[in-house]
């Protein structure tokens, strides 16, 4: 039986994200997870890591643990960049007027739409740790 736990360590760069996302997809293939829940896991992964890359600099390394044991997928993101609590980001109202639309700032709001848990802590190792839970059923 395929392991339902995956640990991914990679540089906090777009290239690092691309390579890690590929490994995440292989892991999800291995546990035969498809459909909407899989999309949400991949989306949370892209949004949180992208946020670390853009706002958490100088993050040199990112470690993500994906656990599918239990009724929820639990994704834990660790990075060694500046302290950054993404819960302080208030999802902004959606734009309806293209001419005055804000560009960007939608990612964390998207994750919050389907995550049942979105936690942040600054660890004793002075790392940022974001934990996201997504129901599997």
């Amino acid at each position, binding site marked *: 039986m395929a392991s339902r736990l995956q640990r991914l360590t990679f540089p906090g760069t777009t290239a690092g994200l691309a390579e890690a996302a590929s490994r995440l997809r292989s892991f999800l293939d291995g546990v035969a997870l498809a459909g*909407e829940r899989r*999309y949400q896991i991949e989306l949370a992964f*892209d949004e949180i890591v992208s946020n670390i890359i853009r706002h958490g600099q100088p993050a040199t390394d990112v470690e993500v643990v994906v656990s599918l044991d239990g009724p929820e997928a639990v994704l834990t993101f660790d990075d060694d960049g500046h302290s950054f609590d993404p819960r302080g980001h208030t999802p902004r109202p959606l*734009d309806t007027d*293209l001419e005055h639309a804000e560009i960007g700032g939608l990612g964390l709001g*998207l994750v919050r739409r389907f995550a049942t848990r979105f936690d942040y802590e600054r660890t004793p190792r002075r790392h940022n740790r974001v934990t996201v839970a997504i129901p599997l059923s």
Partner: protein
Amino acid sequence: MNMQIAPLAERHVKVTLAGRLDTPGADSIETRFLASLIPDANNAIIDMSQVDFISSMGIRMLVSAARSLKMRQALLAMYGVQEQVNQVLELVAIHQMIPVCKTEAEAQAAVGLRVA
């Protein structure tokens, strides 16, 4: 992420995207995508039928292009969006800013191109 651009008529182009429009995917094509549309104010239809994933960075690229085109009196519409990608687009209400059409003919009409 792959991108192909084909002229349809004067100041009208069709852009075919294929792959994952996530952070790395958007990063890999955004400069070329915007450069192919904005300076010449090309009205654009985007074939999304081969895009199987989109995240906020992909949405950002599309909204950025549509907004810049609108400022130049040009339009952008997309069509053929896959179901799960469409669900994400609906979550951010992109349909209120950019026409999301079912067919290429509808997208052409949305950007003012007369369908033969």
